[in-house]
């Protein structure tokens, strides 16, 4: 069942239930009070009649000193005529009187309405005791009050009866009125409550629609609920959640695309040397022997194999830098720079290039192996770009708490169109030159990754035919202790 329907039905049922209970209790109470008053009135009237009798009989006895058997009937009729004239009877105001003897023989009666055959009210009467009963005859209610009175020492029964059906009719009228009111109120309530419950639960439907859209993949969907209640809070939180999910998904998609390009490039880079190796070895395997051809083929197989090997090493470096968790420790920078220089010596000598190091030592939080790897890659790139007998500068400068390491060459340079792409793995500017040097285009992506690990910036400035400058900037470095001490003295 829907929420609005639940709210609607429950409140409606509750209203009907409580309204009716309250109404009927009220009507019943009013009726009871009315009835009680009527009964009291009737009792008083009956008492009045019976006491009249008793007083009259006592008075007559005293006056006439009568014998044991006076004529009761005479005195009764005299009394009743007096009573009747006294009360000035009007319809409904006063009840009727019936007088009976011990054997229930009617001595006097002015009852105008039917009397039931059963007369329990006349049984078990004793002196000073009054019985009353409400009896329904022919759909009308009658009240009967009876007591016993000694007249001339003869006990007679005085029965008082009154039509009280008007009270019951009144009750019925009230009930009908109440029912009408009840129906009117409930239907009004039902109509208003229908709209109110719909209005209250409307934000839920909005939320549902939004969640459905999001679950179908429209992560940019947002909930728009304008209210000042909990729905507003909920929708705000929901939107926050949706935004987080959207960001995460976009991030994942981007990284997925990156991974895909990486794998595509990797397979491409793998397949090219593999094609040569397979092709040339197959040539040797299947062709008729021809020394020149065989030498050429073997030479290609060797070179392409070397290229694969080189690429495998670089790939391992990249994967190492990408996947490992590194703990950065404060280290002096210069010893690492000299280590990197040492491992590049052979390549420097091959082209007779001078590596000029301008030093300024400081301490930087770093992973020694990674920094060495990055420096080697950058110097190697500089060597590849440089002509024979040229110079490469490696400068370390400390400004405030920042350390700059720059590698400057005066080689071939990189044109602007390539500059923003060179960080991508496998991107190479000059394919032919890259092949010759066994490059695969991974070096700079390794450097970039290493810079990321160290939260360092890496920037490249280059001008075609003039040279390239790559700068690594470390934040939060500490100037080398010795220098600090010197400056203090």
């Amino acid at each position, binding site marked *: 069942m829907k929420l609005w329907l639940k709210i609607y039905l429950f409140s409606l049922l509750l209203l009907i239930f409580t309204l009716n209970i309250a109404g009927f209790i009220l009507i019943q109470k009013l009726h009871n009070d009315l009835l009680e008053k009527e009964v009291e009135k009737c009792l008083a009237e009956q008492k009045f009649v019976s006491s009249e009798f008793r007083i009259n009989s006592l008075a007559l006895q005293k006056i006439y000193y009568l014998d044991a058997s006076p004529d009761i009937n005479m005195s009764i009729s005299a009394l009743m005529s007096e009573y009747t004239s006294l009360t000035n009877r009007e319809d409904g105001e006063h009840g009727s009187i019936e007088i009976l003897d011990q054997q229930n023989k009617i001595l006097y009666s002015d009852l105008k309405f039917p009397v039931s055959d059963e007369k329990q009210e006349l049984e078990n009467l004793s002196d000073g005791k009054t019985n009353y009963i409400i009896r329904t005859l022919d759909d009308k209610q009658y009240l009967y009050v009876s007591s016993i009175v000694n007249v001339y020492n003869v006990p007679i029964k005085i029965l008082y009866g009154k039509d009280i059906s008007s009270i019951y009719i009144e009750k019925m009228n009230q009930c009908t009125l109440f029912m009408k009111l009840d129906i009117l109120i409930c239907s009004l309530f039902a109509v208003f409550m229908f709209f109110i419950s719909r209005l209250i639960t409307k934000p839920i439907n909005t939320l549902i629609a939004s969640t459905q859209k999001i679950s179908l993949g429209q992560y940019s969907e947002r909930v728009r609920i304008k209210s000042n209640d909990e729905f507003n809070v909920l929708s705000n939180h929901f939107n926050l959640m949706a935004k987080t999910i959207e960001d995460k998904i976009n991030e994942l998609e981007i990284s997925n695309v990156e991974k895909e390009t990486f794998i595509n490039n990797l397979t491409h880079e793998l*397949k090219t040397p593999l094609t*040569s190796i397979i092709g*040339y070895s197959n040539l040797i395997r299947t062709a008729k022997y021809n020394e020149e051809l065989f030498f050429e083929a073997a030479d290609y197989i060797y070179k392409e194999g070397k290229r694969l090997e080189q690429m495998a090493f670089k790939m391992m470096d990249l994967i190492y830098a990408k996947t490992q968790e590194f703990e950065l420790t404060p280290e002096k920078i210069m010893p690492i720079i000299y280590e990197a220089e040492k491992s590049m010596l052979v390549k420097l000598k091959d082209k007779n290039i001078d590596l000029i190091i301008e030093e300024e030592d400081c301490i930087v939080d770093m992973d020694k192996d990674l920094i060495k790897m990055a420096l080697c890659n950058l110097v190697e790139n500089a060597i590849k770009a440089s002509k024979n007998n040229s110079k490469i500068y490696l400068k370390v400068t400390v400004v405030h708490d920042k350390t700059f390491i720059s590698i400057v060459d005066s080689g071939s340079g990189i044109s602007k169109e390539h500059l923003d792409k060179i960080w991508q793995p496998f991107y190479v500017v000059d394919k032919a030159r890259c092949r010759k040097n066994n490059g695969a285009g991974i070096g700079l992506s390794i450097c970039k990754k290493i810079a990321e690990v160290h939260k360092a910036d890496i920037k490249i400035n280059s001008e075609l035919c003039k040279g390239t400058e790559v700068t690594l900037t470390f934040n939060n470095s500490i100037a080398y202790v010795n220098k600090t001490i010197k400056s203090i003295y």
Partner: protein
Amino acid sequence: MQGGLYLKINILIIEDDEAISNLIKINLSMAGYESRQVFDGLEAFNLLKEESFDLVLMDIMLPGMDGFELMKRIKDLNIPVIFLTAKNGLADKVNGLKSGAEDYIVKPFETVELLARIEIVLRRYSKNSNCAEFKNLKIYEDERIIKKGEETIELTLKEFELMLLLVKNKNRALSREYLLEKIWGYEFMGETRTIDAHIQKVRKKLDITDNIKTVYKIGYRLEE
């Protein structure tokens, strides 16, 4: 197929990797084709405008101008193109063929496969002659006839196909498995001895016992 005597088929190789380019060139020349090498897309475009070629083998990732772009520009020249690429994604394949290429070969490729595809494309363009020659033998592919001088030599269907394949891959050893697959089909579960038996018959019937060399551990090679 190498109607070599009359008109050499000229193939342009556009491949930036020198090793692969040379490999293709060697294989093409062994199969009797003429070829030219270009290592750059733009250079290839300029060359194609000036000279005519019977077929172009083209890498997709090229410096200067990529393969798809080049393909678009040379479409009007109506030269059959076979893409040679390391990209083996389905989308790339579809793109390649949609752009108007005749075929699409994924690196690393087998030389025999490359040659077979080249031949199919050339046949489609009717650029290769119907008649292949070997020594004094003339092999008419469409008619399924081998003539020695003026005399027609009777061969069974399988023997004919075997000979044709050997002639097409002259100076190249063909493995028994390759021959089985090509002539008898994938489903054939025959033994490699079947090949040996057929080779014996072909040798005898055509009198070329010395020309069909048995290559140790591999298969057979037809030599002139």
